[in-house]
């Protein structure tokens, strides 16, 4: 980022703040995860391992919580909303699964604290992590309320990919060495390939043309990924998308702290929304008969 560019970015940012919306954004990637559909099967997580060169750390390091799971499925046993905590004798309504990948916050708390600007916001609305710039101060991870940033505590290369497992490594993104922070990128390498392809064919990127590895594999299609720019920038030539449809239907909006809904009961929320991080992932409430 040169000085000139720094100034450009800054003025773009100021404009967005003063006038609202996302000016000069190329895309605004967003996601919707339907917890009514999520069965907690873990396919997304393994797909992420396969797509993003995630290191397998082994039992000892896993025990020390040094694992790398960009997409993790959280499993809770209590259900505060149903008023049935851990009172009953059995786990009557099953488990509560919550797939958590980087929320790609628009007001990301990780970004301002990085001393070397290795994490920043891209014109795609993504919360980027530049691995080769990272010096490993780990402040970003400490300041992430979702705890979705993972640190390379070791150099995993040799242990995780003994020959010939290393042949599987995706050449479209780096293998991170020790001392580097990493996190979900919304499969930036897939975005890049799709954008290049659209550009090559002189057309706009269509919705559903590509998707992230987790959304792609999700057996119940609980994860929907797409471009939300059209929702915020009427001048945008980007097409509308399924994600926009879902966000609008569930009356969830970016840039607000508390969602205004016609009926406050309508499903759709963002995790820890009140912290003002403005995440780009909307969750649709889990549903249970009681």
């Amino acid at each position, binding site marked *: *980022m*040169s*000085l*000139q*560019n*720094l*100034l*450009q970015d*800054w003025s773009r*940012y*100021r404009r967005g*703040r003063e006038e609202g919306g996302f000016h000069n954004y190329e895309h605004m990637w967003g996601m919707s995860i339907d917890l009514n559909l999520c069965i907690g099967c873990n396919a997304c997580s393994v797909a992420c391992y396969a797509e993003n060169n995630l290191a397998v750390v082994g039992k000892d390091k896993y025990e020390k919580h040094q694992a790398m799971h960009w997409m993790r499925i959280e499993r809770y046993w209590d259900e505060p909303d149903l008023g049935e905590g851990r009172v009953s004798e059995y786990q009557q309504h099953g488990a509560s699964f919550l797939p958590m990948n980087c929320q790609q916050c*628009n*007001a*990301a*708390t990780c*970004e*301002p604290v990085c001393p070397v600007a290795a994490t*920043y916001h*891209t*014109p*795609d609305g*993504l919360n*980027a992590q*530049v*691995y*080769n*710039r990272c010096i490993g101060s780990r402040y970003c991870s400490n300041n992430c309320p979702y705890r979705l940033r993972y640190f390379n505590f070791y150099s995993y290369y040799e242990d995780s990919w003994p020959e010939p497992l290393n042949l599987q490594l995706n050449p*479209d*993104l*780096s*293998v991170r060495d020790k001392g580097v922070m990493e996190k979900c990128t919304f499969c*930036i*390498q897939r975005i*890049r390939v799709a954008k*290049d392809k659209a*550009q*090559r064919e002189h057309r706009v990127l269509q919705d559903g043309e590509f998707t992230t590895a987790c959304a792609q594999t999700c057996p119940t299609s609980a994860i929907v990924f797409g471009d939300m720019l059209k929702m915020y920038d009427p001048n945008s030539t980007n097409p509308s998308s399924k994600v926009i449809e879902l966000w609008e239907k569930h009356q969830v909006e970016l*840039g*607000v*702290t*508390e969602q205004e809904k016609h009926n406050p009961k309508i499903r759709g929320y963002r995790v820890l929304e*009140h*912290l*003002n*991080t*403005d995440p780009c992932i909307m969750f649709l409430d889990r549903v249970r008969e009681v």
Partner: protein
Amino acid sequence: MLATHLYSAGRALDRGASCSASSLLSSTMSRAVALLVVCALLVFGSSGVFAASNKNPLVPNAVPPEGTYDGEDVKQPIEFPHYIHADVNKINCMYCHTYARRSKVAGIPPTGKCMGCHSVIATDKPRIKKLTEYWEKHEPPPWKKVHDVPDFVHFTHEKHLRRFVFDNKGMKVENVSEVCAFCHGEVKKMTVAHKVKPLNMGFCRRCHEANNGPHDCWKCHK
């Protein structure tokens, strides 16, 4: 003051309190940053940001990047004479490096392509004999890489060619070697290709600035 500012932002639970911790932080901070940046710009501005323009008449709308480098000589299985092909015989670079316009890598021509001509042309030359040997063994010659970028860099030939050649008004495709020379030097004057440009981040950055290339980190880093 800044601390309290941030604090209140973080606690601002009503939607009236605009945006977020980080944006509020920047509203005060970025002014300071801008000031700093402007000062720094004045100090260092002359070098790099306003790169001197030494235009190449054969490539319109482009400022060729500056920088020199003297790479090591790479020993190739066959000393491929680029000058005979590209300079004497005026073969377009993209005839052999056919993937350059379609992919991130320019690609080494398939051995079959070499044999397309050399099964009849200059078959008595020692280099061609060596090539024929490989062909008959059904093995491509083990070429060595001359130009490389670090593994965390995402470089695509295709996009650069589109910017400077195909989508560049007034640019003639025959002159593509001038564009290639931006980063590879005058290969058509060389026998075996030799690295003459630094191909480091400063080199890329200065060119991107001079030619309005993207400056988003994730455009080039993966």
